């Protein structure tokens, strides 16, 4: 029972961080782009 509760709590935490993070980082008002490195996808794409 405890293990099950722990799992549920962990999943809730992951979803909470994910949703908060996505909302904070990817809202149109918050967009900085200075020295950002190319993501792996961009890196592969830029080579071609």
């Amino acid at each position, binding site marked *: 029972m405890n293990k099950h509760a722990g799992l549920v709590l962990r999943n809730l935490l992951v979803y909470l*961080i994910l949703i908060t993070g*996505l909302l904070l*980082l*990817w809202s149109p008002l918050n967009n900085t782009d200075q020295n950002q490195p190319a993501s*792996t*996808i961009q890196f592969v*794409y830029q080579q*071609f």
Partner: protein
Amino acid sequence: MLPFASIDFFVFLTGTIILMGGFRFLLRRWIPFPAAILILSLIYLLFFYPKPVHVLILAGWAYLITTLFISVFRIRNKVPGILLLLIPLLLVKSTIRFDTYPFALNDVISFAGLSYISFRIISLYMDLEPGARPVNAFRYLSYLIFTPTILIGPIDRYHHFSKDLDGGYSQVNAAGLKQGLDWMVYGLLYKFVIAEVISRYWLDRFSPESRAWLDMLMNMYGYYLYLFFDFAGYSYMAMGAGKMLGMAVPVNFHFPFLARNPQDFWRRFHITLGDWLKDYFFTPLYTSFTRQKRLKAYPLLRQNVALFLTFLLMGCWNGFSGNFILSGALFGLYSMVHNSYVYYCRRRQRDLFFGNLPERYVKLFSIIIMFNLAAFAIYIFSGRCPWL
């Protein structure tokens, strides 16, 4: 629309999973599972992927060469076939330009994902014994263009992929959906939250042009963490999407920060690339060295040269520029030093560096050393080092 790079793709992916459900419950009598995978991959390739015709031409070329060399002519020596299969990749990666009028040949044959598709092509070509029956052309195409892995892997093996296709619709189930969704959530968290936070609030604060030690150190550690979360996030999402469609995409990352030595590192970081290099470059090269009479008496030299060349190839594969080649050479150097260290420790029957230090401290120090060495080599790779 590149895989996992925009909201559009996730909308498309949701549609694909719903369609797969439709195939499973309504059309399974008419559309078998392998056909469903091919149809869904083709929809993405033809309507949303950049340069779909290029991908199809390469797939056709690779199938022709593989069938002719393996099944028709039964050629034992694999080198000519590999060179022919690699021509497009070599042309694109090389700095030599073929400016044939009215276009440059290099540009015409290039498309995103060429490297990873080439890895899969070579993998199957190497696995087939001369005289083997030709592989099914539709399965071959599915293997090359499977949507979740088309752009940057993980690099699956044909026999594994084909086995999954044989598994049929039973693999599209609630457990798979749940597992896939879990991986997808972790992927999203890694790539779009953690990697993004590192990028915006860590790497952005330290200029890559600065030669101050603190800036360089922060760039080094920051980029290593960024690369891991970005790439592992992508790989998790590919695994998740694959699982939801009923296909098991191989694991690509497994706690690389806990690696204790270079060998261990490549079993944890970009695992499918490490395995690919080991199986299709290191092992054949080492075997050919072993056959050479002059090298018979030098087992350590044989291993070290094969190791160094393997990592040098990995560097060159990223591109023929100084930072990639140097980074590959650095990983090669690490592997050679570690291999020699293990060799001499075995011969002397004692640990030459850590002596009698308790195991838990040896483990801790090994992890710290490897973390820093890997961070440095990846810093060189990143192109953010102001000296390069």
